């Protein structure tokens, strides 16, 4: 094996095809998009260099800032929701349901495999107020409360998106975190129990620190996924009402493909990439500090 990996031609033969495909479909479009940030125009009328105009526009664009605020708010709320609820399920699987957890795990995981558009249509019907009254408003009406136009206001529409996406993804995080908790050696848990740790103390001082690496992975996974939210918002509210639930990704899509402004669209994409990068670095740094303290 050592002799094969020491041979440059063998390395080239093994890595070359994969590297070529990766370069063609990932790297070249990324750099192409990066280049577009310095141009204005469209694919029909042609592109002209515009220097840093697109970046200046971005910082002056109130819609872009509203989209950033929505994206960050959504990412924070959803990450907390996904990971906390997922962790609660994982603990329940391991400590409460134990071997009987398989069927519950399957049921909770089920929404993960459903297509986003189907789930969005389901939630649209669920929260509908017109032309027909959906089950949620029907329930409110039965309590004597008037129907709420959930999709008519940005605030209520936001919480419907959050509810839908948590329902859709909590099963995935539950399984991911369950795998981390299962990995904690039984003898450590047993010995801590013998030392008198149980309930909250066991969770706080034994389970939580030992499952921290997988929790951190989940947070990074979740926050990067949620910062790039697109399909669920597009299918459920299409960014509305107005631009009240428009994340950066949807704004980028509209700018590039509906308004035909590839230069500014690429600039928004670059800003989103930088945002993801900064958040990931921030989480890694915060985690490193915690470990030193421990």
């Amino acid at each position: 094996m050592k002799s094969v990996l020491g041979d440059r031609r063998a390395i080239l033969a093994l890595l070359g095809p994969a590297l070529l495909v990766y370069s063609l479909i990932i790297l070249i479009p990324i750099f192409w998009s990066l280049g577009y940030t310095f141009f204005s125009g469209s694919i029909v009328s042609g592109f002209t260099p515009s220097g840093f105009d697109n970046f200046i526009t971005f910082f002056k664009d109130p819609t872009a800032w509203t989209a950033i605020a929505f994206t960050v708010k959504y990412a924070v709320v959803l990450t907390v929701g996904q990971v906390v609820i997922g962790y609660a399920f994982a603990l329940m699987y391991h400590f409460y349901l134990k071997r009987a957890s398989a069927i519950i795990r399957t049921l909770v995981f089920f929404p993960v495999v459903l297509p986003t558009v189907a789930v969005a249509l389901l939630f649209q019907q669920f929260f509908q107020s017109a032309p027909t009254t959906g089950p949620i408003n029907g329930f409110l009406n039965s309590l004597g409360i008037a129907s709420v136009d959930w999709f008519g206001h940005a605030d209520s529409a936001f919480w419907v998106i959050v509810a839908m996406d948590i329902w859709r993804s909590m099963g995935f995080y539950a399984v991911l975190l369950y795998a981390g908790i299962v990995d904690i050696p039984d003898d450590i848990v047993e010995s801590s129990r013998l030392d008198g740790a149980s309930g909250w103390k066991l969770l706080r001082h034994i389970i939580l620190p030992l499952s921290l690496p997988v929790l951190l992975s989940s947070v990074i996974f979740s926050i990067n996924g949620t910062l790039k939210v697109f399909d669920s918002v597009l299918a459920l509210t299409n960014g509305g009402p107005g631009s009240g639930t428009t994340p950066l990704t949807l704004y980028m899509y509209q700018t590039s493909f509906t308004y035909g402004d590839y230069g500014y669209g690429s600039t928004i994409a670059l800003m989103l990439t930088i945002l993801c990068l900064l958040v990931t670095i921030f989480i890694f740094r915060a985690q490193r500090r915690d470990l030193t303290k421990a």
Partner: protein
Amino acid sequence: MITTAKGRLGRIVPAVAIIGAGALLLAGCSSGSTSSAGGKGSEKFDYLGADTNTEISTVLTLMSKDQCSAENAAQPLSVGTTPGTGVDQKMQLLAGQNALPAISTASGTPSLMTQFVEAKKIVNITEALGDDSSNILPAAQSIISKLYGGTDSYVLPTEFNIEGIWYNKKIFADNGITVPETWDALVAASEKLEAAGVQPITADGKDGWPITRLIGNYIFRDQGADALQAVKDGKAKLTDAAYVKAADAVASLGQGGAFGPSVGSIDYNGMENAFLTGGAAMMYNGSWTLSNFNDPAQNTIGLENIAYMPFPAVTGGKGSIDDTPANIGIPVMLGQNAYGTNTQAWVKCIAKNYGDLALANGGVVSGFKVNTVPTDLPELTQVVQAKVAATTTATLWFEALFSPKQTTVSQTNAALLATGALTGEAFMQMVQDAGQ
């Protein structure tokens, strides 16, 4: 340590420079090149249409077997479809690669069509038709000129729609309402209907345009038919008091409850359904809706109970109630790169025969001259056909001269205006800002 860092920096800087230069080169090279044309044109007469419209492909197929069989022998018709929601994106990409087919659905965004014209991606239809361009109705030509500028036509008007308010005659009669001729009378009628427990107007707040059409028409009636051209030319702003007044009028109508509850949740089918099942007294729509009216499965109130009224006048306004809002639907265009003498023969044949065939086949009123009006047309279709034939000039719609971004901002915020979540001033400010 410093030496190592310098060495690393020395390797990174050229790499970044090469990547940056490469990126700029790639992006710079992707601009649309000029088109070439000539000869007999493409091998086939490829039609690429939106999958939401089957009428055009049906009429073209009928022509290929009869009136245009000779043209079809020289350049056989081939029909393809593309999802209706992504037409603009698809056509932009094809135009950027000089790969527009011989004939295709045009973009619904006039500013994008102007880009196609300026970049010479599509054929000048007036030149292609020569004397046969007289087959295009003057009113249709007037709209094309207003939309794309200049006097030449760059599209074939496969539809010609007039717009206005369709009302339920029975509901009006039951509530003692006469057809409103002024905006104030319309507001009074809405209040009367609401007091009687009838929803006055049904509107598709999800798509927004049936609400913004009211704003546009109010502006035309109040400020005259050129009021939005003045905004495009920079002589006026949407935030001027005269324009904000129109948005405020529609907002005030909505806050009074005229559009019913949760207007933002109603889509196009919901709007049609509410009107055709007697759930609302009025609906703003184009004459393309006649196919729904003529379908007994959808129309439970009966054709005899539906009538058309023009958008009412604004008291003291400069515009006239006789200015008819109209559009040419989604027309078709010809790709310059696939154009040649065979394509020209096809276009001439289409111009001569489309009007008659579309009306006889699907009851569709097009922007082409009709030589023989079928005798078995439904009454409302005859009314529309007569109105179209009598129209010489037409007014456009609110977003017709806007950029794609302004159009999106206007239509996605329309429901918020109609429910009172946005003031007229805030709405107009947003649309104005989107154009900068």
